[in-house]
């Protein structure tokens, strides 16, 4: 699998570390339902068969976290963008 790193270009997936679902947002820890929200954030996943937005870390390259749009049934990659905008 070749990940199109926005910095480095297409690179073999073995240069990257995988984390998982990139649609999750860290909840407000001060919210009254923080327990439930963190339970969902840390543990529950949509786990779709199809389009998946996911985090890959280019550990053997630019060290950027890259959000990759990939299909979990075909492994086809539709695109990739850097985390955190243009830092």
């Amino acid at each position, binding site marked *: 699998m070749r990940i199109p790193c926005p910095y480095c270009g297409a690179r*073999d997936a073995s240069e990257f*570390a995988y984390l998982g679902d990139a649609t999750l947002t860290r909840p407000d820890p001060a919210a009254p339902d923080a*327990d439930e929200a963190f339970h969902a954030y*840390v543990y529950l996943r949509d786990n779709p068969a199809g389009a998946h937005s996911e985090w890959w*870390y280019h550990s053997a390259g630019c060290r*950027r*976290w890259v959000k990759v749009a990939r299909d979990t049934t*075909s492994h086809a990659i539709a695109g990739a963008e850097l*985390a*955190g905008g243009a830092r």
Partner: protein
Amino acid sequence: MSRLPSGGRVDRARSLSFRFDGKTYRGFSGDTLASALLANQVRLVGRSFKYHRPRGILSAGPEEPNALVELRSGARREPNTRATVAELYDGLDAASQNRWPSLALDALSLNGLVAPFLGAGFYYKTFMWPAKFWESVYEPAIRRAAGLGRAAEGVDPDHYDKAHAFCDVLVIGAGPAGLMAALAAGRAGARVILADEDFLAGGRLNSEVARIGDEPSHAFAARTVAELASLPNVRIMTRTSVFGIYDGEYGAVERVSDHLATPAPFQPRQRLWKIAAKRAILCAGATERPIVFGGNDRPGVMLAGSARSYANRYGVAAGKSVAFFANNDSAWTSAFDMKAAGVNVTTLIDIRREVAPALAARAKALGIDVRTDTQVTGTTGQPIGGALTGLAIRTGGRGGRLAADTLAMSGGWSPSVHLTCHHGGKPVWQEDIAAFVPGRTPPGLSVAGAARGTYGLGDTLAEGARQGSEAAGDLGFTATRPDLPATEDTPAGITAFWHVQGSKGPAFVDQQNDVTAKDLGIAYKEGFRAVELMKRYTTLGMATDQGRTSNVNGLAIMAELTGASIMETGTTIFRPPYTPVSLGVLGGHHRGKDFRPTRLTPTHAWAAEQGAVFIETGPWLRAQYFPKAGETDWLTTVNREVKAVRASVGMIDVSTFGKIDLQGRDVGAFLDKVYINTFSTLAVGKARYGVMLREDGIVMDDGTTARLGPEHYVMTTTTANAVKVFQHLEFCLQVLWPELDVTLASVSEQWAQIAIAGPRARDVLARVVDTGVDVSNEGLPFMGAIERTVMGGVKARLFRLSFSGELGYEIAVPARHGEALARALMTAGEEFGITPYGIEALGVMRIEKGHVSGNELSGQTSAGDLGFGKMASTKKDYIGRVMAARPGLKDPDRPAFVGFKPVDPSQRLRAGAHFLTIGAPADMAHDQGYMTSVAHSPHLGHWIGLGLLKNGPARIGERVRAYDPVRGNDFEVEVCSPAFIDPNGERLRG
């Protein structure tokens, strides 16, 4: 069954000697082992898997199920090597396999006598009584009888290489379609790789006799290969099998040296290629199918096209009297070719009532006896070795007999669709050619020629040329299609036919695994009708040939039984690899000491000089201890080292810790978010111990972080977690809080760091720092962190930290000065008897001091479990805070961190022992925790331990049972504080 007087693509000027089963023969350069054996009239080559039936050579390619040999010997022995693809070299040594005592007289061929009882799946129905007998009696016998060849006898002496390649167009297969595809794309300027598993490019062009333009097909192939070789943008890789299509890359194996007795110096045996290609064109050709009839497995029964290949390519007559048995026109062409080459072709048997008049006329002209509407119903053979002597035939209802030592059969052709299935595509049945053709193909891959069911030579050339130019055109190259030479196209009529009904003797579908038509009948009766169930129940298609010659026949026979169409019956999925791939080449250089990289500390050479014993810790080699002359066991050495530190001073390289540089306006705020305790309030010039959690509330890592400037911190992590923590921090920064002004850099490699510890540590430090650097208790107080210079101007970071519990410092210098620093410290400490110590002594001292380490940071412990509960700030949020408050992590009954000492001080504690309440039964319900770390404390004179005990801190003074049955230990220990030495920290503050 002997070498023809002329012809073939072998080099008759280069005669090679080889041995088979101990007997010496001769062949030619360009032979395979199979062609050379046939040329020497060797017909019996192997034994089948289950019934040990005598087998010969069925094919001339990778589909071979029968002619498997052990190639080479000793540590280079390669079992299950297909003689049909093994390139002959001078001195080749091969032996038959899966037979005892000899190939001709194999004791286990007696299995054939009881074959009626050994139908498909018989073993699932018996061998159950008595229950104990499976492991002790039945299974060992089965295991000994099963298997094929024997593994090598020793460590593989050869090397294997790996390489990456990139191209525009990858052409897989250098037959007519592949050559034209490569030519079209190559002439257009695309970067082309043309790979073929064979050692001679050309595919069928070398095995058939056809005219292309005004030259013979093999000459056309050679000329095209020459042009391709002259193009700088084309790379021809023969002896290279593309074995799998993965996401974005193709896997291929180049057999660099398999055609040599041993690899040339500095050359690998094989090389793994990972090829990233923008487009690929599969031109893998087709495989001929056998016909299923009684006795179709005798030596001498062969695929028709293969017999033709032996004649045309190798100049070998497959037999002295050759009959054909077919359902299609291609076999007729093969027969004509062979006759023309001088082989004695006697008879053409065809199941069809009618064949094209031109074929019949040609046969008549060549003097070949034609028997249409005829089937072969049985075979006879020699009493020893079983080689074919004659055929029973049936024309209409009438039986008859024919003498023949070779039967060339053809049930039609199966396109080599294997690679098209590697992304889940399912082949589609095409009725008119009675074959599966590719279904959905992997992205970027198209298929040309016989691999997609295009059999005519002219059509194949055209299809290859078209796809080659289209692929190049898609990629922006200006492609013109090569001129297509005129060809004579051969007829390709076929009438689907699989199985001779009512034939005599076992009719084999899968020859290697001995699956017969009758076995498929059993599977049908028992309900194993779905393709995958049939395959798994009967083992059809599961041999080393992966059913190349058997799958379609098996499916068709099952379809006949169920009354469903072949398409409804389905097909088995082809998975990688296309042909079997050696494990050595997939492993490459990563074996032995080179299995994984070895990281050495900056002071490694110095430590080696000091006589250090090194130990693998993750990727690192670290000094474990430094034995002195006369010290014969490690404990003596470690005790000495610990005592020396506690009495005076010692030093150890701690460069392996992760070191992370953090700079920016918001570093303090950032650290507050990732540590449970507070760092934003840390004064410049000070360091603080911190604990960080995972978001699930479990401890991730610990270490000290120092503030070197208002916007500059440096963090240390444990050796084991250095990579993980850095990645985590980057995630927090890039994904969670990108608004923070913080920049991270891993500086683990850039700084060498040496710890000195002991009452005289300050004296030693004072002698290496540059003039004017104040390292007094005031100038560098406990937990101080300052940037100064040492050794005459070398930039250094000085930290006053202690893992050992003694007065201690860590000195960091740029990595290139690490070794010099070690030597400088040794010199500076000479008068105090400075003692280098290793990680064993380091471990002893941290256990004496009650510090947690890797064994306690198990990823299963909370901050509370490890006694860090009070460190956690209640004034801020941090990673893991919310989840750490879950009841399961707050349960007071959780095992928590305490110390242990043996009640009988002579007892040796062991990490991994479980704790049980005294008097309680030794079972899971009464498990109270376990010992995490132990050490012999020279300070206390007995073993001490750290561990996690249910409600431990409330049980100080209680005795529990340390239960360690796997090492035969079971004795009482006393729960105590984990700080065995200097509990108030007076030493380190002194």
